[in-house]
């Protein structure tokens, strides 16, 4: 029986190496200064680095500014409905496990309207890179409070300040069964962002990556004005996301074993300083599609008909 790893080893039909242009579609229509541009570029770089044929990659998104990304990435893309990117991605993975899948969501998309799918997708552990572009606000609909909007901040639906503390997505996912990869990065740290996406790409299972980014229009002050005054702690491990010297000006460094779930849960709970890098990884968790495909038989047509006839026998009467 072929394993999923075999299925995922795509034969490249391209005789030569791909260039970045091969992954560029139309010109992005995001605001200037928006971090979404950087995430798109990071994804294009990782596709080029792995020399993937654009036709063998599927990007799936929900609704929101960041969910426009599949329009700008020249692969097969599915720009669906609000909060529902993960079920669609699960369907693609179950159906065609040989196709790598990228899921792009915003904070409202994933943590709020898509919350149920978010938690269950982690438990399924589908093999996909799941990027949440978190700008702490609903931007496309013009500045409403999101689950991660800081406490007391004013938005159009909380003009006198938010009522609740923001949720912590990292500690939430660290409580889910079958969590296999959690990382956090920020768009104002481009090299760290690229290396995090790459690490997520290499992981077998659901790679959950929260990407912090301010919205230059509606939330320019988020994350200490886009990292200027935002306390970070870089999680350091030989096998983690490298902490380059240039990052030291942005925060402190802490040795961290991302294979230890207790250590990862402790790190995930911290919000000040905010943990950056690879929080948790367990490459041994099987993916849902792998489990399903291993248990499934793929009979030839003759056997298929014989079996259907045998099933019909159970209902024979008269």
């Amino acid at each position, binding site marked *: 029986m072929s394993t999923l790893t075999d299925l995922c080893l795509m034969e490249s*039909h391209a005789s030569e190496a791909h260039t970045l242009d091969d992954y560029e*579609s*139309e010109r992005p229509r995001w605001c200037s200064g928006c971090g979404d541009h950087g995430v798109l570029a990071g994804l294009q770089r990782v596709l080029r680095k792995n020399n993937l*044929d*654009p*036709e*063998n990659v*599927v990007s*799936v998104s929900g*609704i929101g500014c960041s969910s426009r990304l*599949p*329009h700008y990435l*020249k*692969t*097969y*893309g*599915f*720009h*669906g*409905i609000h909060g*529902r990117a*993960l*079920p*669609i*991605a*699960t*369907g*693609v993975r*179950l*159906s*065609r496990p*040989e*196709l790598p899948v990228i899921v792009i969501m915003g904070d409202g998309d994933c943590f709020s309207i898509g919350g*149920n*799918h978010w*938690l*269950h997708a982690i438990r399924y552990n589908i093999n996909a890179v799941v990027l949440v572009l978190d700008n702490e606000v609903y931007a496309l609909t013009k500045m409403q409070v999101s689950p991660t909007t800081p406490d007391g901040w004013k938005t159009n639906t909380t003009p006198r300040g938010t009522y609740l503390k923001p949720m912590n997505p990292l500690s939430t996912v660290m409580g889910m069964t079958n969590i296999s990869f959690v990382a956090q990065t920020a768009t104002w740290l481009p090299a760290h962002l690229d290396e995090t996406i790459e690490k997520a790409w290499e992981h077998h299972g659901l790679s959950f990556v929260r990407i912090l980014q301010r919205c230059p229009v509606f939330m320019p002050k988020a994350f200490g004005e886009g990292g200027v005054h935002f306390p970070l702690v870089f999680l350091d491990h030989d096998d983690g996301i490298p902490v380059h010297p240039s990052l030291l000006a942005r925060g402190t460094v802490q040795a961290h074993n991302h294979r230890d779930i207790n250590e990862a849960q402790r790190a995930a709970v911290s919000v000040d300083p905010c943990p950056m890098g690879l929080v948790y990884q367990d490459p041994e968790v099987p993916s849902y599609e792998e489990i*399903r495909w291993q*248990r*499934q*038989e*793929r*009979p030839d*047509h003759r056997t*298929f*008909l014989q*079996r*259907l*006839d045998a*099933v*019909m026998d159970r*209902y*024979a*009467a*008269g």
Partner: protein
Amino acid sequence: MSGPRPLRLPEHIVEIVSDAGEGAQKAALAFAQLCAKSGNGLWTVEIIPSEIRPPPHTTGSASGNRIRLAERARVTNAGNRANVVLAFNEMALLSRLEAGSLADDVLVLIDDHWATHEDEKYRLSYREVLDEFRSRGATIVEVPLAKETLRHAEDAQQGKNMFAVGILCALYSKDLDLLDDVIRDIFKAKDRRVIELAVRLAAAGHQYGVTHFDRCFEIEAHPSDVAKVAMNGNTALALGAVSAGFEICSMYPITPATSASHALSEIFEDFGGFVHQAEDEIAAIGVALGASYAGKTALTITSGPGMALKTEFQGLAVMTETPLVIVDVQRGGPSTGLPTKIEQSDLLHAIYGAPGDAPKVVIAPSTIEECYYILSIARKIAEEFRMLVIVLSDANLATGQQLFNRPDVSQTPRRPPLDLSPVAPGALPYDWDPTTGLSQRLLPGQPDGMGVTTSLNHDRNGKARYDAESNQRGHAMRSRKLAALQKTLNPPSVHGAPQGDLLLVGWGSTRGAIEEAVDVARSEGLSVSSLHIQFLSPLPPGLLEIFARFRQIITVELNYSDDWNDPLITNENRRYGQLAWILRAATLQDIDCIARVPGRPYMPVEILEEVKRILADRPGVASSAPALAAGKGVH
């Protein structure tokens, strides 16, 4: 063995009822299989309490089955009031009277154990209920179900249902050896001791019946040369999904749809398929849509409340022209409504239930046999037209059993591998044929076909567009596919004479009862015919021409309409049955309806009474419908 000379009858209806969990359903299953295997035509309906363990010995606890067995092979509905009822206690019996499902002269077989029960309350209740039945003209035969079972088993609860089947075997002059086979088959997964006890009890029940009954019946059976199968509609849907070539069924549990997924789960992996139980109804359709987008044939199975949750995804399937099949096993609504009971509740929801203009194909099987074949039709349309196809089954088809010709599985088409050849230069993801709206579907993995599939309005290139022209164009192309499909359909054929005073129009599982009522009415000289509509969206061609030949058109539906005699109701505010709404809009004719929500199938006799009243009342329409309006809620 000798007994009374059997009375030959063309058909009979027998109900078997007990407290929930006492095994009447198993007894009915055994009896139905006995009838089926001996060659009787058959239709069964489950009698299901809505709770797992309702308080015992109450009318709410009654659980069991109605079995209509006939000499003719083809039985199309559950029939009229029952001729025989076998009850494990008097409250279960009473529930069937309250349900209006028993004939006045019904033959009642009842466990006599309650007559001498130590608790006076039960003795009294037993006597009162039996007196009530006697006064209505019923014949009571008390049978020692519990007492006799105790001679063979330690606990009467464990096996009195098998003694009961033995009794029915004797009452209907059936072959005990055949019953023996049936029971061994039903219990084949059980311990040998259990099987032997069941067989022994059935034989004891048979012996009891043969020696004690002063009457017995024979519904002649004609073993057929053609192989037959008997199953319920949900099982037929499951097997139909396999033979239609579906590869993924993504679902969330909901009554009364779930048993289709049970049947599929049991076998699907052996056929290269998956049943995915999603985290909710929304994810269930999302996974199906994602799987279909990537190239596999996918369906989702649900019921009314699940349909409601799936509406946004339905719109997405329509907008992206992703082939998808939804099976909606309808139940009583709105909201949680009557979860275990039949209603033709979701026709309008299926056709219109999505924001914006979202053209979909809606079809409905009318028999359990059609449940098997309809998914092949649905798949073909979904894929060729890149459309969402909704199949409306219902709780009646879902749990009823019917005998039909064994499908020839050798005709099942081979599933071709995905065509992932490079996309021809210039081919576009929505390269709509301007006449039909049809376009070629591109699949991930096809070189040179990269692009986004978006929920936004888009042009032929699949690019998001916000202008008036492309929006109008996209709408027209998606809508045109329905017209293109409609052109391929045959006009429906009228049951009965092609012209007359009254045409009854129905859809879904009411077909059998409507046609039976029409047959009886015509034999009595009434000028009535009926028309069954399988395609609800698009409607089949030729309706105007057919309607023009009748003086009056009335739909017969199991859903709600205001009654003409209700307070405040006028011809300006009256709300009609769901098919009536559609036909009125499509034909501009004053089409009325017989539309009620009794939570059980119509009996042919009820439709017949309506027909007689309408024809006598003319030119008045189907005004108050006393028999049906009384809302006798049963199964």
